[in-house]
């Protein structure tokens, strides 16, 4: 919230789009504005009515450099937009830097995401230091179709305008914290000597030479990948990562998804009864990839590009009592299995579990 808690005295607000960027179709700009307003109206009693002329509470415009509000824009990149806290005249207004590449997808800057952030200011919010919050100062792309207003922003705006009138109170994603004892993972993979832990739309990146893990959105590296990655493994030899979600998988090299992906997991040889893959790791020495599904696992030969015979087998019969596997990766010869907040270190030579740790043991908590 902003000092002095500036807020609109009414819940029924008006907005007007003063001009349009030539870089997008008018209808797409209207749609981006409508969706951005809906982000806030869906969690508060606020409503927004579009005006075609006259003075509206929130005037939205695209502007160049010095546009007479004492806050000149700086050309492409840098400052993308700004907005003013609730109040008369310029209060509540949103200014977008016309020199940015506005789009409705992942190219340039997504107009919906930046507008939704600026409208937070128009309604009285300041910046949040939660890296996953919409009101975090720096731009991060997320697929608008996957966008959910984070809990941090819901808490902020409801502290000003109260809860939504909807019978079911909306909730939002919470930003994972590396040392949260209850932290579990969707999937984990190594990547060129680092370890990437995936959770929702986030990834925690752990470099062996750094004590702290770095939190980013998955979309920072792979904007076309979905959130909620369920399994992932690195094929070190081919310098490729394979990601799984539901019955699809993607193969990436660096930032690039290889052509022809996603493919369906049945392409790998899974029976149609398998709907998703829970975890996977690639054995550096044998080149075999292990896939864990419910209480069973398959072994895939990366050379022959086919599943080995004699699979699936029961996880418990070959890996011991590790239960369902959420995530797995191999490092320095050991395999690390994650089940909820528990982590098992498995020695494939001795064929037994040699240690049990917390899921967050890699983060020096």
């Amino acid at each position, binding site marked *: 919230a902003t000092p002095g808690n500036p807020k609109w005295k009414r819940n029924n607000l008006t907005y007007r789009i003063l001009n349009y960027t030539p870089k997008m179709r008018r209808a797409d700009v209207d749609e981006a504005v409508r969706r951005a307003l809906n982000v806030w109206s869906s969690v508060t009693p606020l409503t927004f009515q579009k005006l075609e002329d006259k003075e509206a509470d929130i005037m939205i415009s695209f502007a160049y450099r010095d546009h007479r509000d004492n806050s000149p824009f700086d050309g492409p990149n*840098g*400052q*993308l937009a*700004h907005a003013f806290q609730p109040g008369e005249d310029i209060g509540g207004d949103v200014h977008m830097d016309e020199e940015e590449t506005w789009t409705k997808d992942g190219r340039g800057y997504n107009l919906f995401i930046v507008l939704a952030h600026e409208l937070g200011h128009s309604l009285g919010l*300041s*910046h949040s230091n939660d890296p996953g919050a919409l009101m975090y100062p720096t*731009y991060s792309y997320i697929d608008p179709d996957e966008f959910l207003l984070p809990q941090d922003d819901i808490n902020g705006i409801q502290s000003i305008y109260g809860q939504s009138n909807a019978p079911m109170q909306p909730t939002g994603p919470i930003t994972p914290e590396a040392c949260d004892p209850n932290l579990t993972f969707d999937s984990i993979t190594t990547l060129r000597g680092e370890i990437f832990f995936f959770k929702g739309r986030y990834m925690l990146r752990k470099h062996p030479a750094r004590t702290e893990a770095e939190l980013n959105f998955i979309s920072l590296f792979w904007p076309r990948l979905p959130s909620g990655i369920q399994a992932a493994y690195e094929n070190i030899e081919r310098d490729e990562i394979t990601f799984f979600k539901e019955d699809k998988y993607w193969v990436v090299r660096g930032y690039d998804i290889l052509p022809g992906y996603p493919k369906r997991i049945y392409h790998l040889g899974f029976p149609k009864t398998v709907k998703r893959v829970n975890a996977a790791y690639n054995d550096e020495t044998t080149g075999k990839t292990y896939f864990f599904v419910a209480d069973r696992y398959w072994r895939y030969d990366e050379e022959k590009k086919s599943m080995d015979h004699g699979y699936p087998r029961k996880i418990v019969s070959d890996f011991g009592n590790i239960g369902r596997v959420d995530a797995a990766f191999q490092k320095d010869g050991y395999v690390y299995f994650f089940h909820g907040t528990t982590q098992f270190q498995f020695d494939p030579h001795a064929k037994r579990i040699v240690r049990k740790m917390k899921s967050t043991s890699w983060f020096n908590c």
Partner: protein
Amino acid sequence: FPVAPEAEDEEKTLQFVESYLQSFYDLRKDHHPHIRSGENPLTAKLKEMQSFFGLEVTGKPDLETLEMMKKPRCGVTDVQKYM
């Protein structure tokens, strides 16, 4: 006489850091250190920015801090006094 590129970079970096802190952390333009007031205002503001972004608070424009400063962002200030 030609300036050594390295020195110029440092000057440019400092200007960039100052401009960022003036835009988003309310660093006064006339922030020259006063002998008795202790910490250099720029350092203090830099620490405030590093703390806000969860970076290591060094008071120095280190690599991670500069990377964060170069990210595209909202033009509203990060400190609470915007009008």
